[in-house]
């Protein structure tokens, strides 16, 4: 499978980001994308042959593994489009690590890579349209998240500024979450279904450790980590200013990604989802957690657009909304499947 290659590509790209060989980085990223495309098509074909359901109905996006892989694919494609449009490679240093992290997560965690048979509800032509468009939108939103965070990093100067505190805490929490999850994986060496992992193992090495002492120490360490990110966050700004990005450009990319993501999310995620739900379950809207969280995400981005276009909010305020929007996206996509129950729980299998 091409994912190992793709992962190495991103790491290679990271290594090259400071050097002048940006073209090489782009080439490697494109090569990664192409090989991943082939891998997806191969899996698609294998699935179609296996299920005998015809090509269009067997899109490989039916479980967590496949959807994450497709998400990475969309993200890299979106990034390459931006690189091409804005003739600027600096975003790559922020986007490719996300892709790399997701792939690493897929690889390390117990997400099942097997091709699984479809439950009857998923056998529909709407699967392809609904899931593809949702993920294209998710990828666009994650681009807006990266540029939004970059914007905040560049534009905040004082440590006491609310937006500075906001981005350091957000970034710090993300890092903390990843580190503690990484610790769990390293300690337990388990490959189980994600929801089992969450119920039985997650944070058991740190925040939920059976011994109270370790628990307290982890909380203190976690807080210390946040404090360090907060204390030294400005260093990131110095790094960023070396790249050739202006805050205005970041603001524009954030807006454009949302302007592309929002209509696609509305049509593919909400409307197609509603039509499909109507056909399969007999209700186009049932307030199940996935639907509700999509609506919450939709509302946050609608908030962003109205704040920006009508109220004339610019800069830091809207960047914060964009970042918050993406946390809602993550929760819609992963949190709902893993933490809440509902009709939509296919992805977690």
């Amino acid at each position: 499978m091409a994912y190992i290659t793709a992962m190495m590509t991103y790491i290679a790209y990271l290594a090259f980001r400071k050097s002048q060989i940006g073209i090489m980085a782009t080439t490697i990223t494109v090569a990664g994308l192409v090989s991943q495309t082939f891998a997806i098509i191969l899996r698609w074909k294998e699935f179609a042959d296996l299920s005998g359901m015809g090509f269009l109905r067997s899109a490989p996006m039916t479980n967590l593994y496949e959807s994450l892989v497709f998400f990475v694919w969309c993200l890299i494609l979106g990034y390459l489009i931006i690189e091409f449009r804005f003739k600027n490679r600096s975003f790559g240093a922020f986007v490719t690590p996300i892709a790399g992290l997701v792939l690493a997560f897929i690889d390390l965690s117990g997400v099942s890579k097997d091709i699984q048979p479809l439950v009857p509800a998923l056998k529909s032509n709407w699967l392809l349209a609904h899931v593809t468009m949702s993920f294209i939108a998710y990828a666009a939103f994650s681009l807006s998240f990266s540029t939004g965070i970059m914007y905040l990093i560049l534009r905040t100067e004082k440590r006491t500024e609310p937006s500075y505190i906001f981005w350091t805490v957000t970034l710090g929490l993300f890092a903390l979450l990843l580190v503690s999850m990484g610790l769990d994986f390293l300690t337990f060496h388990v490959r189980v279904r994600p929801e089992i992992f969450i119920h039985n193992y997650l944070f058991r090495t740190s925040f939920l450790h059976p011994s109270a002492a370790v628990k307290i120490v982890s909380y203190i360490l976690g807080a210390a980590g946040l404090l360090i990110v907060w204390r030294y966050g400005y260093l990131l700004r110095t790094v960023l200013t070396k790249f050739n990005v202006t805050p205005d450009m970041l603001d524009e990319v954030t807006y454009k990604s949302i302007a592309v993501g929002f209509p696609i999310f509305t049509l593919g995620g909400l409307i197609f989802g509603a039509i499909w739900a109507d056909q399969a379950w007999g209700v186009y809207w049932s307030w199940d957690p996935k639907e509700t969280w999509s609506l919450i995400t939709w509302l946050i981005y609608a908030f962003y657009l109205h704040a920006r276009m009508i109220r004339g909010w610019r800069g830091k305020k809207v960047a914060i909304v964009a970042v918050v929007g993406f946390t809602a996206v993550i929760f819609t996509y992963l949190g709902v499947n893993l933490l809440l129950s509902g009709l939509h729980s296919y992805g977690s299998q």
Partner: protein
Amino acid sequence: MEQEKKKTIADKIWDFLASVKLAIVIFALIAITSIIGTILEQRGDPANNLQILTRLFGESLAPTLFSISEKLGFMDMYHSWWFTGFLVLFSVNLIICSIDRLPRIWKLIHEPIGPLPAEKIRKFAVGKEFTIRGKPDSAKDSVVFALRKAGFHAGEVKEEQGYSFFAQQGKYSRLGVFITHFSILFILIGALIGIRFGFKAHLNLPEGAVSAAAFSGNGREIRFGFEIRCDTFHVDFYGNSDMPKEYRSWLTVFKNGREVLRKSITVNDPLTYEGITFYQSSYGIVPGSLNQGIFIFNTVSKDGKSTTINPRLGDSFDIPGTGISAKIIDFSPALRVDEHGHAVTYANQMNNPAVLIEFSESGKNTFSGWLLKRHPETWQLPNGSRVEFLDYWGVEFTGLQVRKDPGVWIVYFGCIAMSIGLFIAFFMSHPRLWVTLVEEKNTTRVMIGATTNKNRSALERRVDKIVSILGKQQEGDK
């Protein structure tokens, strides 16, 4: 400013209801309350919610929080008065905000575009100023040509010192926002009609049974005005697993005692009759029916003669063409052999239907064994004939979701309108462009000014294109 003072209370209320601030507050309110709604189980078992609250807030706080959230309707919040209130406020905000803004936008759309004086053209954010050779009269044609190449069909006015051009595009794209906003209203109205004039109900229909009504969530009986019968129900599994691949019910609709429609339904393929739609949603075994069903066997003798027979549990039958008679001893809906070699039933679903049959020839027991519906190799008898176990009919029910929703088409219309509206609002813009040509000592000074509501960079590229075409023509004229 004077107008500000004259504002009456009605004006103030109007402004408040039309404000984007209110919209943003409602967005936030709906979002935050919905988050609570996804954490607490809706219309679920109260004990579960108490447990969730205990896990989140600890033993001491949970009971208080529970009674508060129960009183506020958080256990069924999407149907509570205040959530409905948010939606009503949201619609009112949408309508008033649109009425408030529409006249201004309408004026902008219908305002004819005309020439602008040079000093105004210079003020636009997108613009270029340069001179080209020749008097305006001769330069005019190449300007028109360049404008057309860049996609602008400009109006033209002769002025004292030269010419003035003006063009606009996509002025109706400014309506995209309104289409989007109204589409939300359509969706809400459609939903309202569905709630008021439609119903949602459930019906467990056993194989062979006929029903004229279903039951809604609160136990109310809803009559269809016709009858529906489940002829048979069938599940297909993946390979040897117990994972259902497809389940299908064969349904027949009777109106006034006459058959009017026959259709088999699966999960993504429902049946609709007179506005009422039947969705395949679940299945199961009718309690107490396991010994009541009818077997459907197809016996095939050695010489290939096949006969269908329909015995019941405990019945005896002869296999035609042989001297063998059979007696049905036992049935299991899901047979498995346990570690001690005993046959056990492992599920209360028809996952692996099996029937125990005792065969005898001229009065002597010769053979007895389990015949498995999902394993045709068990159908073969030692003497070469075969008993095909096709079905055990009448023990399963099909779970149907029954719905009537006259508002669904309005909702769909709203969805289509929203897609179109969003597309227009985000991907189409309304650029306007002015050009003046002024004579300047045998050359012509060209001034371009342009503005757009969206996508400025695209407009900048188009203006650059006009400039470069004019530049090329100049070189060509040399």
